[in-house]
């Protein structure tokens, strides 16, 4: 049985951040991820916001890790090559009453160590955001945006390059502790590890239950989003948030620009029973559009190209107020069992700082020797559409697949699709391609490119059509051949 120093359950942004930190040291580490790719849980289904820290209660772990993580993101982006844009955020108040809330936010922000905050009047907002009107606004310059899936993939693929094993489609079914080893049973075999990190997101309670009695509950809270067509990217420049509403039934939807030029409307917040219930609902989609148009009247009705939802792992119920701090601790019952529970917003921002904290906890058990040959690969996959003509021509000369565009909406080339499918994690779903090179994310939603991507999978990567999946392990795309050669 393979013996590891550290086993991480969960390949989301938290598990992948930890894996990347682990990969800097001489350790045998493994990540168990039950989906077909990293980030396929909540890590890809959020707003992609790098929070400043104004939204977290002073003194909480959320605030601490958010402010620390915020500072670590830019250097990490430069090192690993993922995109970050410091677009800033306006929290808009409609009237004097709401403006008082802005004063509260700026106070919390300053207490949390957030810099650059200032209150501006509606006229100043209008100069930078001609389509937004308000009374006063709080300007938050240290808030930014990223692509959460790109971030997670960069961390995971770099960790893989440095010999952390990512086992995809691998679900942990049982864990026992024997002497100083955790015995981990999965659908892909049995493993043992000295230390066990629980970064399994919505399944965090299930993992704890395998070893001890949990003293917490998980309350899944779904957030739905709408995605607007890129052609409306110039409607806003920064994130636009309303003052958090007190009225029941009002969501207080955010408008978040994305790195790619789409605008996200959302999220909603709905407590649900089933942590896997990621459906979008008619009610929420209508409400999201309605509230978005109140903030930004110029949004056309036919501007929506996609909708999705993500589930927050909350540790407090709706009745309890829905707010609880992170629980990051080593179990007192099972030494070496480190838990990360309730990592909801600002978890994306906090991830780099949380990972460093986990390394500190691990160092109490294992002497961490830095790797001599630690590699950093600038993960950023070259985008044909962003290159100069000269670069484009040079690439096509070297490899003609750069000249074959297979995704018309986003101008993605065959070379980029091949590159995406050649990822070191071995992830080969249609969504894995989408999240790495963007093919299929445009307004036609795969109408043109899907057949070409399937052809590449079949011919170039020798994939069996029955094995081709959309996203999850059982999301098969096809049911064999229309015609088969009959054996005479």
């Amino acid at each position, binding site marked *: 049985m393979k013996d590891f120093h550290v086993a991480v359950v969960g390949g989301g942004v938290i598990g992948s951040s930890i894996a990347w930190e682990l990969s800097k040291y001489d350790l045998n580490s493994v990540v168990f991820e039950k989906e077909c790719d990293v980030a396929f849980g909540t890590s890809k289904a959020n707003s992609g916001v790098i929070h400043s820290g104004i939204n977290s209660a002073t003194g909480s772990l959320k605030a601490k890790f958010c402010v620390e993580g915020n500072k670590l993101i830019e250097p990490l982006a430069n090192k690993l090559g993922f995109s970050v844009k410091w677009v800033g955020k306006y929290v808009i108040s409609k009237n004097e009453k709401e403006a008082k809330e802005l004063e509260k936010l700026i106070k919390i922000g300053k207490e949390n160590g957030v810099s650059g905050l200032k209150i501006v009047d509606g006229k100043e907002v209008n100069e930078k955001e001609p389509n937004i009107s308000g009374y006063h606004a709080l300007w938050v310059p240290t808030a930014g945006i990223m692509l959460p899936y790109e971030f997670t993939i960069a961390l995971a693929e770099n960790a893989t390059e440095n010999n952390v094993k990512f086992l995809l489609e691998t679900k942990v079914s049982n864990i026992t502790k024997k002497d100083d080893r955790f015995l981990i049973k999965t659908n892909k075999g049995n493993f043992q590890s000295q230390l066990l990190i629980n970064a399994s997101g919505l399944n965090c309670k299930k993992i704890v239950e395998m070893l001890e009695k949990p003293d917490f509950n998980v309350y899944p809270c779904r957030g739905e989003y709408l995605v607007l067509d890129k*052609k409306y990217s110039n409607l806003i420049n920064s994130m636009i948030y309303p003052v958090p509403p007190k009225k029941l039934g009002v969501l207080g939807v955010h408008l978040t620009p994305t790195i790619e030029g789409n605008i996200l409307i959302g999220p909603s917040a709905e407590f649900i029973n089933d942590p*896997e219930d*990621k*459906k*979008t*609902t*008619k009610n929420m*989609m209508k409400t999201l559009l309605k509230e978005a148009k109140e903030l930004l009247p110029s949004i056309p009705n*036919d501007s*929506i*190209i*996609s*909708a*999705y939802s993500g589930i927050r792992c909350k540790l407090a119920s709706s009745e309890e107020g829905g707010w609880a701090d992170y629980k990051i601790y080593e179990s007192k019952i099972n030494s070496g069992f480190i838990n990360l529970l309730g990592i909801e917003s600002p978890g994306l921002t906090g991830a780099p700082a949380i990972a460093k904290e986990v390394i500190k906890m691990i160092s109490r058990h294992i002497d961490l020797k830095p790797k001599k040959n630690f590699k950093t690969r600038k993960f950023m996959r070259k985008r044909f559409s962003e290159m100069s*003509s000269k670069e*484009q*021509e040079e690439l*096509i*000369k070297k490899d*003609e*697949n750069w*000249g*074959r*565009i297979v995704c*018309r*909406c986003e*101008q993605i080339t065959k070379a980029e699709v091949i590159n995406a499918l050649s990822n070191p994690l071995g992830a080969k779903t249609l969504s894995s391609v989408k999240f790495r090179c963007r093919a299929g994310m445009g307004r*036609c*939603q*795969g*109408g*043109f490119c*899907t*057949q070409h991507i*399937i*052809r590449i999978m079949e011919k170039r990567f020798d994939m069996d*059509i029955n094995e081709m*999946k*959309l*996203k*999850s*392990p*059982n*999301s*098969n*795309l*096809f*049911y*064999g*051949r*229309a*015609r088969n050669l009959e054996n005479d």
Partner: protein
Amino acid sequence: MININTDVTIIGAGPGGLASAVSAKLNGAKKVIVLDRNNWLGGILPQCIHDGFGVEELGKSLTGPEYADLYITEARKNKIEFLTETMVLNFNKNLEITAVNKKGLLNIKSQSIILAMGCREKTRWNIMIPGDRPSGIFTAGVAQSFNNLYNIRIGKKILILGSGDVGLIMARRLKFEGLDVLGVVEILPYGSGLPRNIVQCLDDYDIPLFLNHTVTEIIGRDRLESVKIAEVDKNFKVIEGTEKEISCDSLLLSVGLIPENELSKEAKIKIDKNTGGPIVNQFFETSIPGIFACGNCLQVYDTVDSLSKDAKTAGRFAAIKKRNKLNREIKVIPGKNISYIIPQKIDNSCKVHFTLRVKKPIEKPIIKVKSKGIKFYSKQLRFAIPANMVEFDLDIDLDEVYKNLEVSIGD
């Protein structure tokens, strides 16, 4: 950079591109090049293996590939050049096209450009169907390509949303393939495809047509498991208590086509919001002189026969190098009961071929063309429904028309 100079460059080698290319050559254009993003010619035709193409034009009912082959043969005979696997990145008002293929970047300068990019299919999110996001949801055209070109079976139990021709054709096709086609769901009180297809695709095979119904929810975490449908009232609002769940593994969406004009919009060509395509004059010239539009990127045609006819006109005038200076331009305005009419403007005295769609079914319809309130022309038709494009020819003398023409249909 590969530099190319041509007389006419055509973007798209589907039926619009093919017909206009041949016409341009036959009308005097010396060098005609057709660019297409796929590695085959014919656009959507090679996957349309059913017949019904060319009935009016040729008096025969051909299959899509056969119809395409006729034009491709004619094109090759006339030394028209094809560049396949070539994607146009952009073009500008100076008629300079930037394109890319495996050989590199191309810079193409032309005397005329014909836009023939076709159309794309409406997606689930264009009509905002709520629910899970499983595999097994395909637009009908994509399902058709997998089934007919790539020999891939897309599912076992199929439900189709939308009774337009693409959906009906796929219903029959998949039934032939031995799949369980559970029905076609249509929000309108009548089928939107040709009656011929309702009979030969649905009635013949006892495939139920659920009129006045829509899909209200998609269910399935991994692969599609079921779909909820419900009845709607005349305002298309769901009627409470009529929801039922249909177990299936595939949902084919045939809910509408959108003319593909991203390139046109980038070049600032004026677009008609009602057609989704460029505003054109009687010669199919767009708001940029020298750039013409034809085929499904101009409007969604019902039959390839009408499409080819207009495409030939576009090709004919794209071949003309010296264009007459504009005297006057009159607007053609869609009046009562008209959704849209093409051409939207006329700047030459000549015989004009009009195509239009009505807003709703009209019994004993009469087309009325007025100028300054005075009836200019009228014609009684046998019937008019939105699914059937109405066509008529009219001699227009600009001197006789005041400022614009208003076309309406009454009963």
